[in-house]
């Protein structure tokens, strides 16, 4: 394992410190307990938006703290949910009296820790709504799993719900739009090579030179099945097919197409995937109205990508286009 790190146990602390220094105009960092919050407090009466989860998915979540997106982000250890003693003060920091929405990726650890923090916050008089992100079509949502995982859709939910909160929507409305985006987005990922968790020191799974892992998540966990290496177009078709089956788009439906890099894949390859995905969507009669291509929710240096398709409505388009000013996503300001 070769990484640009010092002590494997200090990676999250040191990385968040560096992040805080680089973006001191936008965010402040609480070192212990560790969380990141907006430097300029949001105006009174704005619904607070908090997310968090294991580290290793940068720029998620801290990179999305700022105007029009999150009020606070809570980084756990690498691929490990943060704890209630971090989430609670982040929630309090995000609260201006109008309640706080927790955007939580649907992993047992995240759900349990955010639940506990929400109870504690409620005991301190802050109303909390939890919205679970579970957009990953690779996992069957059934009694026989922990439910679908939250993956690429998280970024879109944080952007759109953040814009709703900035616009002045109330607690229920912000939670409702977050839920609506979650219900309208589907994602599937692929890994060409695994990542190495710093404290583990070895790759989180082994892939032969001619194998890829289809339906992979963002924690270095193995995917749903392993197949022989294919062309970018072939892989793109495999990822899109279950997404399209689930979304069941009407002809002329407007969509947002999000091709996300897992951290170790060149941008040029993401555009090759985007090219094919746009072709397939056009053939399916959908209209790609908005796009996002890049490393927005990663799994350390994993090689691979995920494709997300979000069925848009007019309100979502307006909220997507609304100004955002965070370290990792910025426009209109």
């Amino acid at each position, binding site marked *: 394992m070769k990484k640009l790190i010092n002590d494997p146990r200090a990676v999250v602390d040191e990385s968040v410190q560096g992040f805080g220094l680089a973006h001191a105009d936008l965010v402040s960092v609480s070192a212990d307990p560790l969380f990141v919050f907006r430097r300029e407090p949001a105006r009174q009466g704005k619904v607070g938006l908090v997310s968090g989860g*294991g580290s290793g998915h940068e720029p998620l979540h801290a990179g999305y703290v700022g105007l029009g997106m999150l009020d606070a982000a809570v980084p756990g250890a690498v691929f*490990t*949910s943060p704890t209630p*003693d971090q989430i609670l003060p982040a929630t309090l920091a995000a609260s201006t009296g109008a309640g706080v929405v927790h955007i939580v990726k649907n992993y047992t*650890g995240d759900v*349990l820790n955010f639940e506990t923090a929400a109870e504690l916050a409620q005991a301190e008089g802050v109303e909390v709504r939890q919205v679970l992100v579970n957009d990953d079509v690779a996992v069957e949502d059934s009694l026989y799993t922990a439910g679908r995982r939250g993956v690429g859709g998280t970024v879109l939910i944080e952007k759109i719900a953040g814009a709703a909160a900035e616009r002045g929507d109330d607690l229920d409305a912000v939670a409702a739009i977050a839920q609506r985006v979650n219900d309208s987005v589907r994602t599937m990922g692929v890994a060409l090579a695994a990542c190495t968790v710093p404290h583990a020191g070895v790759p989180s799974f082994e892939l032969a030179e001619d194998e890829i892992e289809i339906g992979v998540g963002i924690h270095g966990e193995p995917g749903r099945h392993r197949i022989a290496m294919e062309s970018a177009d072939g892989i793109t078709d495999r990822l899109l097919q279950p997404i399209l089956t689930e979304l069941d788009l009407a002809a002329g439906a407007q969509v947002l197409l999000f091709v996300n890099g897992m951290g170790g894949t060149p941008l040029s390859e993401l555009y090759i995937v985007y090219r094919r995905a746009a072709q397939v969507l056009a053939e399916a009669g959908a209209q790609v109205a908005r796009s996002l291509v890049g490393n927005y929710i990663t799994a350390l240096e994993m090689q691979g990508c995920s494709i997300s398709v979000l069925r848009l409505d007019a309100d979502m388009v307006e909220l997507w286009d609304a100004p955002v000013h965070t370290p990792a996503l910025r426009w209109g300001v």
Partner: protein
Amino acid sequence: MATELDAGWAIDWLRRCAAVIAGHRTELIELDRAIGDGDHGENLDRGFRAVTAKLDTDVPDTPGAAFKLAAMTLMSKVGGAAGPLYGTAFLRAATAAGDAPALDAPALAAALAAGRDGVVARGKAETGDKTMIDAWTPAVEAAAAAADRGATPAELLGEAATAAEAGAVATDPMVARKGRASYLGERSAGHRDPGAASSALILRAAAEAAAAVEPGGSPAGGPSA
């Protein structure tokens, strides 16, 4: 053999947990790497190191207080699924133990059952879902049987640990239905559940701490870190 276990035993147990988890850190990481995300050993190691650090400054005077200290520390230092689950287990065990200065066999069996019930309440797992519950439930049942039979606390914990170890082994062929391993579907079979494995280690540490207790009631001198 002591008929009751006091705060000294509880503290010794927690210190032994730290030692045994540190010793099995890599093994637990490997188990979690196979069907999860490879952090279980690291997370528990971080958590129990924090527990022993806490114990260096803060000496609980009842088993219940020791369990509560462990609960709060694990809850705030472990994260992931295991943090809240183990945290809840120790918290419920603390509630069951109450203010009692020492626990007899029936009280120990009740504390273990309360801990297990706490994990079920938080995690909603059932037996056979390939989780730590598959170690805890046989342990709770063995403890109840031992208490009914009038076994000593050390015997009770020994039998609970043995049952937990068998329960952990029994997760090998299971297909996971809860936690991160469930994403793997059928591919989760053929691997031991890391949480069940760590639960067996923790319960074995409880038994060893009990076995080390002098008739008078305090530990004969287990590892101190």
